[in-house]
């Protein structure tokens, strides 16, 4: 087996507390480049919080995070530097459950906003890149529409294109299909599978057990802020060592 380069995500002993509740109780994780990791667990287990800590949408309480070799310091008192956070975010692309498209901009505007505002690209160059990624998600024909006119599945695909346009090293999916009707979920999952086939490193928090079983290289089961099960889909779905995981899987699949 080719010796992998250094892991693209390395998280050590991550803790996160809100006031007096501890949501993440020491998560440690390494993800190799190109890996597709599904994160499953009951609501409240900390899956979304963990994902959001990675790009500092939530501020972790302690631990270390390193993306693509660059680590960021997590302080108790003074905040981690804004520049460090910005560098971190430039390597991570995030897709949200509520899509969060900006309604006052067209689809193309949404996709190119990051390029023009953060990467300081010119409009023409940004538009070209934007169109390239819109074609990848099959929505080039909607580039001049406003998000309000699109279906949920289309909006989410635009959101994926928007994240991809920034050319991140890792894509984070926070329950990307949870607010979609079943028919629309399929088109988004297809895009995600294609992305996985292209070799993108993906961290997918999901309830779609089908995707976790068939499309991912690795499945992580979170419970009460700790990783209880971590292995290949076959292992986690067919022979989990933790009883809670077994219960969760059987209730989720029924």
């Amino acid at each position, binding site marked *: 087996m080719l010796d992998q380069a250094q892991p693209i995500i390395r998280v050590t002993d991550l803790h996160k507390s809100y006031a007096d509740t501890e949501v993440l109780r020491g998560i440690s994780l390494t993800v190799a480049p190109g890996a597709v990791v599904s994160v499953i667990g009951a609501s409240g287990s900390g899956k979304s919080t963990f994902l959001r800590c990675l*790009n500092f*949408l939530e501020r972790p309480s302690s631990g270390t995070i390193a993306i693509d070799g660059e680590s960021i310091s997590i302080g108790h008192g003074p905040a981690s530097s804004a520049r460090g956070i*910005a560098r971190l*975010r*430039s390597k*991570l*692309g*995030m897709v*949200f459950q*509520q899509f*969060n*498209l*900006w*309604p*006052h901009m067209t689809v193309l505007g949404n996709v190119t*906003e*990051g390029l023009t*505002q*953060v990467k300081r690209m010119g409009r023409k160059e940004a538009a070209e890149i934007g169109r390239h990624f819109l074609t990848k998600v099959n929505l080039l024909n909607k580039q001049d529409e*406003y*998000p*309000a006119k699109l279906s949920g599945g289309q909006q989410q695909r635009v*959101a994926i294109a*928007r*994240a991809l346009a*920034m050319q991140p090293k890792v894509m984070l999916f926070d329950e990307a299909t949870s607010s979609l009707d079943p028919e629309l979920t399929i088109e988004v999952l297809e895009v995600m599978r294609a992305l996985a086939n292209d070799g993108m490193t993906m961290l997918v928090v999901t309830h779609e057990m089908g995707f976790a079983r068939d499309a991912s290289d690795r499945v992580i089961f979170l419970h009460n802020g700790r990783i209880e099960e971590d292995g290949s889909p076959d292992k986690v779905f067919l022979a989990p060592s933790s009883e809670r995981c077994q219960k969760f899987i059987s209730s989720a699949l029924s």
Partner: protein
Amino acid sequence: MTFVDNFNRFVLANLGPLFSGLWVTVYVCFWAFLLALLLGAVVCFVRLRVRYLKFVAIAYVEFFRATPILVQLLWVNYVWPELFGFPRTVIGAGILALALQSSGYLAETFRAGFEGLPKGQREAAEAVGMSRWRIIWRIELPQIALVVAPMVINQLAVVVKSSTLVSVIAIADLMYAGLKIVNQWYEPIEVLTTIALAYFVLIFAISSIANYAYTHFQTKFGLVTQR
């Protein structure tokens, strides 16, 4: 005397004073609305961001929303010069009083707009790496502007309606000109009806623009807004 006769005698003959009254109305409403936007924005900012002055902002809004416009007009015109030394002219007093009243409503409207903005909008922008000021300028403010636009335009209509009372403190607006003609000739029907129609047309136009903004923005951007 027929209606048309009277119309010619009292309205058309006095078009000069009536139009200059209309001009004064437009002038007063324009500056009052602008000042109200500014004051409302400031008060809203203080209410949302300046912790120690929060109660001052709340008191300001409650006071100017609860007191009637006529009372405020008289108060600003007669009491303020004694207390504060300004306003020095009746027009200044009229503009200031109208602005103060509307600024209370506008501050609340702006606040509703800010608080109604979904948090996810900001998060998506942060995830892409935008800086704080860019997020406010490119993502949050445009959306808030679109959401509050109908109510703000409606507030302009309210300013025009309240401006009819400035004739009470001797500002020579349209109402003042009309009442002067009525007092002179005591044939009020044509003059007053014409003035009422003029105000109606003006305010109806403003309300229609607000309505258009409401429906148009809702269908185009899918923003939930209020009338």
